[in-house]
């Protein structure tokens, strides 16, 4: 099953490689991994999306918790949470009808066109990973020039938070 796990880690140079190394050494899956510093500059917040059976996910969370640099961990999957991913797509947009079709579809997805040339559009879209997948499907495969995705990040709803 797909799990989304949030981590607070020491903002140390080696922390990221320890976490990535854990996944590769033990043969765990990483769907996506995002990381950036938090409001507290000594801490980084990381979101990992991974796939695995319950048993594997249990090992993943335990092994992550065991890393000295990991300060706190939360598996959000079964908690009420919000999840978003951001994407840029550069797409070939030639001819009036093609250009307006892309615009129309983008409106439906609430995507924004953030850069325009005579032959291309660059589109920004935020949403669940599935929504991003769905949007790409609306484009003709040959038209897609470049896709940049941030990987998912998540936050739980309500009062509770992942903090110290």
């Amino acid at each position, binding site marked *: 099953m797909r799990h989304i796990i949030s981590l607070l880690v020491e903002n140390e140079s080696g922390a990221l490689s320890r976490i990535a*190394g854990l996944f590769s050494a033990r043969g765990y899956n990483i769907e996506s991994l995002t990381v950036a510093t938090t409001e507290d500059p000594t801490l980084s917040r990381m979101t990992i999306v991974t796939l695995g059976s319950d048993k594997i996910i249990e*090992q993943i969370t335990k092994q992550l918790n065991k890393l000295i640099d990991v300060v706190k961990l939360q598996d959000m999957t079964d908690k009420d949470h919000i999840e978003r991913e951001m994407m840029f797509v550069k797409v070939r947009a030639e001819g009036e009808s093609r250009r307006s079709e892309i615009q129309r579809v983008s409106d439906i997805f609430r995507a924004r066109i953030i850069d325009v040339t005579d032959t291309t559009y660059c589109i920004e879209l935020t949403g669940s990973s599935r929504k991003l997948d769905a949007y790409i499907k609306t484009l003709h495969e040959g038209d897609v020039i470049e896709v940049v995705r941030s990987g998912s990040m998540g936050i739980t709803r309500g009062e509770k938070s992942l903090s110290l």
Partner: protein
Amino acid sequence: MELSGSEIIVQFLKDEGVEYVFGYPGGAVLHIYDAIHQQDDVKHILVRHEQGATHAADGYARATGKPGVVLVTSGPGATNAITGIATAYMDSAPMIVLSGQVPSGMIGSDAFQEVDAIGCTRPCVKHNFLVKDINDLAITLKKAFYVATSGRPGPVLVDIPKDITAPQIKIPYQYPESINMRSYNPTVKGHPRQIKKAVELLLSAKRPMMYSGGGVILGDAAQELRTLTRQLGFPITQTLMGLGAYPAPDPQNVGMLGMHGTYEANMAMHECDVLFAIGARFDDRITGDTSKFCPHAKIIHIDIDPASISKNINVDIPIVGEVKKVLSDMAQIITDSHQKPDQEALAKWWGKIKNWQAQDCLAYDRDSQHIKPQSVIETLYEVTHGDAFVTSDVGQHQMFAAQFYPFNEPRRWINSGGLGTMGFGLPSAMGVKLAFPDADVACVTGEGSIQMCIQELSTCLQYDLPVKIVNLNNRYLGMVRQWQEFFYEKRYSHSYMDALPDFVKLTESYGHVGIRVENPADLKSAMEEAFAMKDRLVFLDVITDQTENVYPMIQAGAAHNQMEISPDHQKRQNSINPEGELA
């Protein structure tokens, strides 16, 4: 007190109570070596290879419970240490490795003797640190000792760039008495409700089995284990790493379990209805086929490492906590409850176990005209009155030592169980001998393994470490040969040890005593002679039966009731019925 980085390191080690540092100098640690030179509190042991330094520190740590300390230079110094670091990691031995690094400004430039020690060691350390600022040096060292010795212990590497240790730069130093790390709080207290549930299950068992591992030794819980085991009257088996926590000669002990464990231990594992795992981690050499592991049992598991629980085998009652405390809590609860296990069921269970024991699975040919390796270990036991520290290398000799030297006390049996590192035996014996100069320290080895760290004979002479080396010389990489005999139709590919040195002469050239034993009749007197030479290192080169195999054996991936006991193939085939009992 204003000190340079080098002086801080040495002063810190002294303040931390470190007696010995095992090391080897080089460019990146020259400043540190200069500081070591100017004091006598922390003694430096100059090994002959960095692998030796790590194993020696490891042996010291396992025998004493205190962390072993290693000092190596950058580049090849650090890479040579990796085998020993990984060895300590797999067996959870507390170790601190200080590695020199090229100066901060040169890191990343492929400087002379630069290697990314943090990256190289990351998968086989509990944690590692790169010191980037001299002001962080003392606190980082404190963290390293704290992490290495608390929770589930393990090796910690501290990589120190040369500029941090320069004599010109001095800063105020104060020993950091305590340390608090927000990201590291090893859980220590077992959950009371889980403990109560576990006791209830134990008391209701009809065919109980205790299975204890290295965690009991690391957690100094041998006494608590003995009390509880005797209170319950249950059979107990111990892993290769756990030997000695419960006294082997005791009637409740049914011997080691696993691939080369006893028939009775493995059969009792297979048949038990409650399995009580204590500081053991369900390693594949223990479980064999996990789908057939303890098929009738509810399982209780105490471990300090939550990640060890339900990793390989799902357990019914997990208890995360310090084994020592949990075991004593359990004993207390049982005393207070005035309850006892079902005595009738227990008597029946013991009856069954006695039947298994009657198969005498460790029997061997005592009338052979060749020296049988088993008899060498038995003689070692006799001559040392069962009271020696025994370190070992890896191979058949290791298994024979584990099977035939019944350890009475914890921390006496020191071997590389998890990583299985040939070369471990001699240097680890040096570490033990330094810690216990008056004790008998024997290194049981093979002619293959001993050659992997033979250079440490020189260290033994320099520091006067009269260990006794018992070389079970079968002219084969015996364990490899055994697998080739069983599973590769006797195609002995590269397992014959050709061109062996004359070990007696070799030992003599290192300034020690060498004795060769070729005749069974001479074994005991030679062993006595060796151990009578209290102040000399003696290398006993015992020429043993080349064809001997380690039995019993469960093939990798087979179940506990699929043991092979007799070396006679026909008998092997016929001897075990489908229920796994001897016909």
